[in-house]
């Protein structure tokens, strides 16, 4: 904690709050039928994306998953554009062509949410390779889930990263579920990080609901990568508060499971408690942020609703640079 300045802490809290409020709001708007397509929410997992991305600049790259809103926000993608994208509007980050599952901002180093489980592994290796050639200490982070940890692309990418000594962090977001299936069914070892040894890289497991734990472990891994020390597998154990996608009744969860997690494992609450107890920030400062973020999300939704749809002229563009 010591390393973090007050402004860093407030920024991290703001990011987590933005993600939380963004997702809670998308959840509500989805229920009204205004948001099209498949939507996967990141609420509950905010400390992971935030703890990791706090160490990154726009020159560092991340690859994301189907559950990409949190990664976007943590990587600094514009929230107004994101919300418009999720509503399918022309003003969206991807002009309404991508939607929730493909939300991206390459200028911010966010290489896209991805509808294909495990696809980010190879892409992240590529980003890290590019950084290596650039030679300025850039890194790439591959976010993937407990379910994705069984995809061959992820496994072979760890090996590739090691062979090529790439500055890449494999960031396993273990939220306990792949769709309706528990991690206990899909992953036979106690931790996903147990797979690291087979690829000759450090494997670390931390409490993903604790921003500080994530921040510290990610910092070490990223530092090592920047210095040419190669890849790390970092697993963050966390929870998702909503269904796999919007519309999922979550009958596979134990009764009261989410309620208990919201009470006991909410990363925002844990952060606030720790940071105020240590006297680093005040409750009032956090509340002020809460208010600002609430207003921002309201604005984002209002703007998204008011924004125009893409038009026929947009249908056939952006397939190729030239053809």
């Amino acid at each position, binding site marked *: 904690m010591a390393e973090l300045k007050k402004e860093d802490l407030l920024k991290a809290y703001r990011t987590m709050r933005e993600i939380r409020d963004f997702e809670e709001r998308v959840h509500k708007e989805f229920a009204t039928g205004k948001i099209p397509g498949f939507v996967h929410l990141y609420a509950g997992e905010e400390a992971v994306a935030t703890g990791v991305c706090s160490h990154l600049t726009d020159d560092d790259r991340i690859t994301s998953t189907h559950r990409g809103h949190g990664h976007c926000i943590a990587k600094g993608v514009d929230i107004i554009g994101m919300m418009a994208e999720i509503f399918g509007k022309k003003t969206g980050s991807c002009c309404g062509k991508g939607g929730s*599952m493909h939300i991206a901002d390459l200028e911010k180093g966010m290489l896209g949410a991805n509808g294909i489980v495990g696809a980010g592994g190879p892409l992240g290796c590529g980003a890290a390779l590019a950084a290596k050639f650039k030679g300025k200490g850039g890194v790439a982070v591959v976010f993937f889930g407990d379910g994705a940890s*069984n995809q061959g692309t992820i496994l072979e990418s760890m090996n590739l990263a090691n062979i090529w000594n790439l500055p890449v962090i494999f960031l396993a977001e273990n939220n306990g579920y792949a769709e309706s299936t528990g991690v206990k*069914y899909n992953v036979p070892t106690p931790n996903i990080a147990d797979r690291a040894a087979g690829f000759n890289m450090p494997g670390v497991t931390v409490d993903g609901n604790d921003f500080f734990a994530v921040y510290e472990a990610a910092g070490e891994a990223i530092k090592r990568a920047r210095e040419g020390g190669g890849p790390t597998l970092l697993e963050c154990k966390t929870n998702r508060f909503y269904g796999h996608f919007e519309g999922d009744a979550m009958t596979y969860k134990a009764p009261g499971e989410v309620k208990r997690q919201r009470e006991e494992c909410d990363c925002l609450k844990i952060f606030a408690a720790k940071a105020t107890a240590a006297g680093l920030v005040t409750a009032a400062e956090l509340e002020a942020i809460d208010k600002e973020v609430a207003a921002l999300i309201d604005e984002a939704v209002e703007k998204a609703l008011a924004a125009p749809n893409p038009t026929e002229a947009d249908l056939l563009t952006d397939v190729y640079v030239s053809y």
Partner: protein
Amino acid sequence: MSRKISFKDAINEALSQEMERDGSVIVMGLDNAGGRGTEGQLDAWGGVLGVTKGLYGKYGDRVIDTPISESSYIGAAVGAAACGMRPVVEMMFSDFFGVCFDQMMNQAAKFRYMFGGKAVTPVTMRTCYGGGFRAAAQHSQVLYSVFAHIPGLKVVVPSTPYDAKGLLTQCIRDNDPVIFMEHKVLYAMKGEVPEESYTIPFGKANVVREGKDATIVAIGWMVHKALQAAQSLSKAGVECEVIDPRTVSPLDFDTIIKSVEKTGRLVIVDESNPRCSMASDISSVVAQNAFKALKGPIQMVTAPHTPSPFSGALEDLYLPSPAKIEAAVKATM
């Protein structure tokens, strides 16, 4: 027969009846039961869209949930099929075949030929395909044109609950690898389906509507759009024959050619991207074999050469529509 059930339930019923009938039939896929390794309910999902729901309760361990390792579990289905089982393996969305294309293209499809006719690989790969859900570029593809290009595969694309049940039953009993493509928009559609099991043979097109002025060949969801267009054109005095091939590999070219010989005009409605598509395939075969009968150029109504857009405003423009089909029929005149 008067019982009406949904396309989804028709598939479920075919699976259940075949599992009942033949102990070598197993069902495999992501969350096909659901709730494994959790503290909640077992059989929680029945696949992402609920198609296999309830099978776990009836057939227990013959419903196998898989990790997200499509190469391995689709390949395992192929391997098990070559060893005496009749697996029905689910690929959640056909777009995902990209991660395990080899097991389909180079393994399942080629065993029999490479091994000199000594392999039998009765695997059914069920998959959900197509647009209409605003599911964007990686969850909306059609891809049967790609699958049909590959010798050794059979490709089935039902358009009604009745056909879905009969064709899926045939898939499971069939001794070759088959891809069974379920359009996501059709799942909720209801239609008459007999309770007893039955099969529909591959390679027999269904003449859904008779007509003398133009032939419309349409596939999967597009059959319904073609029928809408035909109805509208009928009001204007143009009577279209609508043909649903039901299986695109093998494809019943005879029925199509006969119809074109009668009508002299052909429109093909194919939700695929246009290049090297099923539309171009049918067009080329007809142009070659019914050259003299054609009174005007064949018209293709397809998606453009563009990935699927997310926004509903764009997706509606992207997909073939009754209006576009009508215009195409007129263009053949």
